[in-house]
Structure formats: structure tokens, C-alpha cells
């Protein structure tokens, strides 16, 4: 690939390689956009689309994100925003898992939903969206519920799992699975104006502490529903945790839960 490296270096502006040149390189050398992106990083260059990241994420860290695999469970309210942000952040491998199709009552909040896509499989729409916004990302859509039976296979190789499901049963099961597989889990949940986020590392039982009074039903989201801005808030907090986990930097929401109340505009930290 000496020819490719030369091509990339010749066509870089400073250490930035423009998207058009990345596409050109893929065509010239018969490679995928992901393979060219790998070569861009190997040459010490930065894809120009990440230039506004670079004051907080170095080129080496951007490469680290590109080489990371994140599995997002759920492609609804939380999941839509999480998938969008992970792809824009530059996480190279994204697995989106959900068994549902879009319904009209999703349109008030789910980023991936639109009238034209009602009835379509959520993870398929998610894969299309990621291919549009960052075609160098490898996205794997899985139409399934992630559970005990298939979880080990679905989560294999993940650097991090993101909880974007809509019920406590699935969350506790996911926490068990991630614990067994030694994969960090970023948890988020919402209801109306309210939500919370926490990060659970292997060996920690903080999600079980968080839901220790759960009796088996739904939370107050059953009465409140969810507006557009609450999933976006929780999803953004979750992606910030994923970014720090993948880069091994910053202070994680570990052993603590951040709760937010957008009605009174209050944020609380709860030890777990």
C-alpha cells in the first residue's frame, strides 16, 4: 500500500485529508472507505471531517475511536440520538440492535423516524442514516431482541455497550451479560422531563442498586411518555461517557448516577 500512502500524503492539506480525496482514493485503489480511513490514520493524517474534534481528541485518539466497536441496544428514542452521535464522533464499528419497526407515536422524539419510514425496521433505517452521515463507519444492523440466548454472540468483541432499551427487565439482563463478558455498559433511562445516566464497569453492581426497589413494571414513563428533548439529553450524556471509556480519559459516571430534571432544571448526583 505504499502507493496509497503516497497518494494520501500528496493530497493532504497539511495533515488533513479532505473527504473528496478519501472517496477518490477508495475508487483509485479499489478499497472501502473504511480501509482508506485506516490508511489515513496509519499515515499520520486526519480525515478532515474530524478537524473540529481535534482540540479535544488528538489524531491518535481519533484513530482509537475509529478502531473501536460499540454495540447500541435499542434504536428508538435514546438509540437514534446515540447512533447519530457515535457515527459523527467517528466510532469505526457500530452495531445497532432492535427488533421493532417505526410507528406514528415515535415521530415526536425518535431521531431516526419520519413519516416516510413508518412500518420500516428501525435498525435498517439506522444503518442507512449512518451510511449517509459517515460512510467510513462500518455499521451492523441486527433485527433482534438482545437477551440471554443470543447476547454473548451479539456483544462479542465490543469495547463498550450502550443501553438504549425501554424497560428495566432488559436493562438488568444486559447488565448481567456485560458483567459476564467483562464489557463496560453505559446506562441511560428517561421519563417525561426526567432522566438519568450511569456507567457500569465489569464487576460493579450499580445498576442493581439503582433499580433495587423495582417491582417488575414500567417506570413513570408509562404515565408521562417522552418528549423530543429528554432522549436527546440522556443520549448525549451517554455518548460522552462512551467517548471517555473508549479513550480512557476523563472522569466516568462510575459508582454514581447523574439524574436530571428538565422541568425544574436540576441535576443531582446519586452514589451507587
Amino acid at each position, binding site marked *: 500500500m505504499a502507493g496509497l500512502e503516497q497518494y494520501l500524503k500528496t493530497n493532504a492539506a497539511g495533515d488533513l485529508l479532505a473527504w473528496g480525496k478519501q472517496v477518490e482514493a477508495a475508487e483509485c485503489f479499489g478499497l472501502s472507505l473504511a480501509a482508506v480511513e485506516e490508511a489515513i490514520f496509519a499515515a499520520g493524517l486526519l480525515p478532515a471531517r474530524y478537524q473540529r474534534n481535534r482540540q479535544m481528541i488528538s489524531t491518535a485518539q481519533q484513530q482509537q475511536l475509529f478502531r473501536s466497536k460499540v454495540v447500541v441496544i*435499542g434504536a*428508538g*428514542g*435514546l*438509540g437514534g440520538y446515540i447512533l447519530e452521535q457515535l457515527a459523527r464522533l467517528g466510532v469505526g464499528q457500530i452495531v445497532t440492535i432492535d427488533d421493532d419497526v417505526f410507528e406514528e407515536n415515535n415521530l415526536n422524539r425518535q431521531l431516526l423516524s419520519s413519516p416516510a419510514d413508518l412500518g420500516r425496521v428501525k435498525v435498517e433505517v439506522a444503518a442507512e442514516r449512518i451510511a449517509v452521515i459517515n460512510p467510513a463507519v462500518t455499521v451492523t444492523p441486527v433485527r433482534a431482541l438482545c437477551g440471554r440466548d443470543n447476547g454473548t454472540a451479539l456483544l462479542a468483541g465490543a469495547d463498550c455497550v450502550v*443501553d*438504549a*432499551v*425501554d*424497560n*428495566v427487565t432488559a*436493562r438488568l439482563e444486559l447488565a448481567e451479560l456485560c458483567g459476564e463478558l467483562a464489557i463496560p455498559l453505559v446506562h*441511560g*433511562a*428517561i*421519563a*417525561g*422531563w*426526567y*432522566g*438519568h445516566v450511569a456507567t457500569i464497569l465489569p464487576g460493579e453492581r450499580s445498576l442493581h*442498586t*439503582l*433499580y*433495587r*426497589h*423495582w*417491582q417488575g*413494571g*414500567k*417506570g*413513570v*414513563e408509562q*404515565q*408521562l411518555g*417522552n418528549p423530543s428533548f429528554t*432522549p436527546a439529553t440522556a443520549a448525549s450524556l451517554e455518548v460522552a461517557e462512551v467517548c471517555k471509556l473508549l479513550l480512557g480519559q476523563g472522569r466516568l459516571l462510575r459508582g454514581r448516577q447523574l*439524574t436530571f*430534571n428538565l*422541568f*425544574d432544571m436540576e441535576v*443531582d448526583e*446519586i*452514589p451507587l
Partner: protein
Amino acid sequence: MQITVKLFATFRTGRFDIEARDYPEGTTVAAIVDDLGLPREQLGILMINGRHVDLTRVLAAGETLAIFPLVGGG
């Protein structure tokens, strides 16, 4: 005895954010939850002075009980 009760999120609606309330000696968390009409199945987090507790915990004078509803949507 006086107990400070802090309510969060939906539990504030029609009640209060924070209130100093009088309860008899030996009052449990469950008794306060029921006194405030908080549905048991909606309970998320219960904490006294920043530590997680169960419904059976007996309160001592001057303690602060914080009650959060269960949030589980996505």
C-alpha cells in the same frame, strides 16, 4: 420527631420539593411513602442522608429522606 423529606421528579406534583415533617418515633420509610401517597410500584431510589435504604428502615430524628420515582424509558 422531625424528618426532612425531599421529593424528586413526578413525586413533587401536588406535594412538595422539600419539607420538614413530624413523624412518631419508630416511623419506617414505608410509612412515610404511604403517608405521602406514593405508589410502591413507582419507587425508584430511597436514600437517607445520601445512603440507599429499604422500605423497612426506621428513621431517626433529624434524618433526611430522599425519594425518587422509577425511571425506565428509552
